[in-house]
């Protein structure tokens, strides 16, 4: 091989690194972008949940009275309150566990209601970093892809020679040149977001990817490294709670079962709101006993710092504050702010939309890059030998099934929520199966059809699924838009559908005959002269 310049070798790295990780990155970015609205998708996928007309304090009172009536003997209650993003009120009992069965209540009346089982918007969130793979395989793959993304971003800075000169340049209808322009524009203009989201994504799992420092300095003890780490603490509390609960039940058995009334929650909620911001959940340990504890946790989005595990504790009977929320230590704060930047829970809906559209721009950047790879090699696929030709052929198919096919799968996942029978057991798992089945079908379709046909048909399919979402709701629900969040979500899918339809229409258009290479060079020369 002849020695090549830095630009050439970086260009090679960018092309092949980008191609190999591009498909994976597109899937990660698209599901991550959708996960920005995970709670809203949850609300849409639980259409039985009624609109909440009451404030949190009233909903909490309803939940307490339900729990007193039905679960008075339990040692712990957990109430998840309706918030600005989600009107759902639910309770669970027993020691606090992630997957405890939840009972949904009507926040307006406190009556129990049945809500269909669903994997919800949480599926997009989980897929985004686990790829639906067991153990930590997915997390490692995603980490690898993120490093690949950083490599692609930094190499692009070296190979993009006219970074500022072509800052605002997009020349449509010029074939390969347009794809490159679009790739550059989405890459350059949204570069701060690309860098931030990729780097902070790695920071979230820094302890999985690089455990050495904490292992060496603190013997792997996260709590020692980062101050009172949350997971260890809840386990301790749970164990303690279990012990106390047992002794309490024994105490009751001896006949001293006098129930002590809980303090009203409203003033406590106000206090917690002042200290923490909007409250998401209330857990009560030992309800009915004189040493009852009330713990309130905020929603994640009241500050940039990811406030997972932040809480404020009150005495259950007197209502006095026992524990104010802790301040994070500097190292922990740094990690949590970086994670918070990635989780995008702060800044309300305007910020959420900025993150969503920036995420879409990232998807577009990756997609245009992938398409550009194949467009460049379409003219003379045989030039680099039969194996390369096979590879390019495969790349075309994968592009179709990753870019268009994944969009179909995401839309089909939402359709599955409405169309699968409500009484199906393991319903959430079936929704996920619908997602993967549609994705696999799209790959099959992409392999069977001619390239342009496959692109157009799959984009039309995605467009139809998105645009018809309101009709689906209308056909399957009685009052589909009673909760405005559902109406907004469907408006958004219609907008996405319009974009897919536009893309399909552009592919359907008769292209200008591809100019031979020499001529296109003349054209660009003319442009340069014109400058």
């Amino acid at each position, binding site marked *: 091989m002849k020695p090549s310049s830095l630009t050439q070798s970086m260009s090679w790295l960018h092309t092949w690194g980008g191609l190999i990780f591009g498909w994976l990155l597109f899937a990660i970015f698209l599901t991550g972008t959708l996960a920005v609205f995970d709670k809203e998708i949850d609300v849409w996928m639980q259409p039985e949940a009624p609109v909440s007309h009451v404030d949190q304090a009233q909903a909490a009172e309803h939940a307490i009275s339900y729990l007193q009536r039905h679960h008075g003997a339990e040692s712990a209650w957990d109430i998840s309150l309706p918030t600005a993003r989600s009107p759902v009120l639910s309770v669970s009992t027993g020691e606090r566990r992630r997957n405890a069965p939840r009972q949904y209540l009507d926040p307006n009346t406190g009556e129990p209601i049945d809500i269909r089982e669903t994997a919800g918007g949480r599926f997009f969130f989980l897929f985004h970093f686990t790829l639906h793979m067991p153990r930590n395989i997915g997390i490692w793959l995603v980490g690898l892809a993120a490093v690949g993304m950083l490599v692609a971003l930094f190499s692009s800075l070296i190979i993009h020679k006219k970074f500022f*000169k072509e*800052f*605002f*340049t*997009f*020349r*449509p209808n010029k074939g390969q040149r347009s794809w490159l322009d679009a790739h550059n*524009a*989405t890459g350059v*203009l*949204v*570069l*701060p*977001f690309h860098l*931030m989201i990729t780097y902070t994504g790695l920071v979230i799992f820094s302890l999985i990817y690089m455990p050495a420092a904490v292992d060496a300095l603190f013997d792997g003890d996260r709590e020692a490294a980062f101050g009172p780490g949350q997971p260890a603490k809840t386990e301790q509390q749970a164990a303690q709670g279990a012990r106390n609960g047992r002794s309490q039940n024994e105490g009751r058995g001896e006949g001293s079962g006098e129930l002590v009334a809980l303090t009203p929650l409203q003033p406590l909620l106000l206090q917690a709101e002042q200290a923490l911001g909007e409250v998401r959940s209330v857990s009560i340990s030992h309800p009915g006993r004189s040493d009852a504890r009330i713990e309130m946790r905020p929603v994640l989005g009241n*500050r*940039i710092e990811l406030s997972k595990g932040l809480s404020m504790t009150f005495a259950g009977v007197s209502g006095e504050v026992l524990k104010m929320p802790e301040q994070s230590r500097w190292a922990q704060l740094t990690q949590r702010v970086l994670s918070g*930047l990635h989780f995008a829970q*702060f*800044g*309300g809906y*305007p*910020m959420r939309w*900025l*993150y969503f*559209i*920036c995420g879409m*721009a990232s998807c577009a950047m990756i997609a245009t890059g992938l398409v550009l790879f194949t467009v460049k090699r379409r003219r003379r696929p045989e030039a680099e030998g039969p194996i390369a030709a096979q590879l390019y052929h495969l790349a075309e198919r994968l592009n179709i099934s990753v870019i268009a096919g994944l969009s179909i799968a995401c839309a089909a996942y939402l359709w599955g929520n409405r169309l699968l029978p409500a009484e199906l057991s393991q319903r959430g798992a079936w929704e996920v199966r619908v997602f993967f089945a549609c994705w696999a079908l799209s790959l099959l379709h992409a392999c069977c059809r001619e390239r342009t046909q496959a692109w157009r048909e799959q984009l039309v399919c995605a467009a139809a699924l998105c645009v018809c979402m309101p009709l689906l709701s209308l056909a399957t629900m009685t009052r589909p838009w009673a909760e405005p969040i559902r109406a907004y979500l469907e408006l958004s899918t219609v907008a996405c559908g319009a974009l897919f339809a536009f893309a399909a229409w552009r592919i359907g258009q008769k292209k200008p005959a591809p100019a031979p290479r020499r001529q296109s060079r003349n054209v660009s020369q003319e442009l340069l002269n014109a*400058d």
Partner: protein
Amino acid sequence: MLIEFFAGLLLVYAGMVALCLGLKRHFKSVWQREPSVTWCRTFRVCGWLLLALGFAACIASWGWAQGPVGWMGQVSLAGLALVLLMPYRPRLATLLPLLGLPFLLSALLLA
């Protein structure tokens, strides 16, 4: 908060338009004539000033911690919108901030 948000969006978009017109090629594509050096320089200064004003609006909207994050997002997306609109409707892309102004003013008066 919403008014500051949209004010910020309008300001940073206007800023990006000004920076864009500060480049010869784009000035020509909009006004069909060569810009003088003074014009280019004026546009660039105005562009940065407008971006700074947009920054102030973001701080007013989100505070000092979250404001810069929002500003970055707004600048990126305003730039992207401008780039996509420019080749199809160059005049509209440049004059869009002026069209947005009455909406913003009426919102301010109503608030």
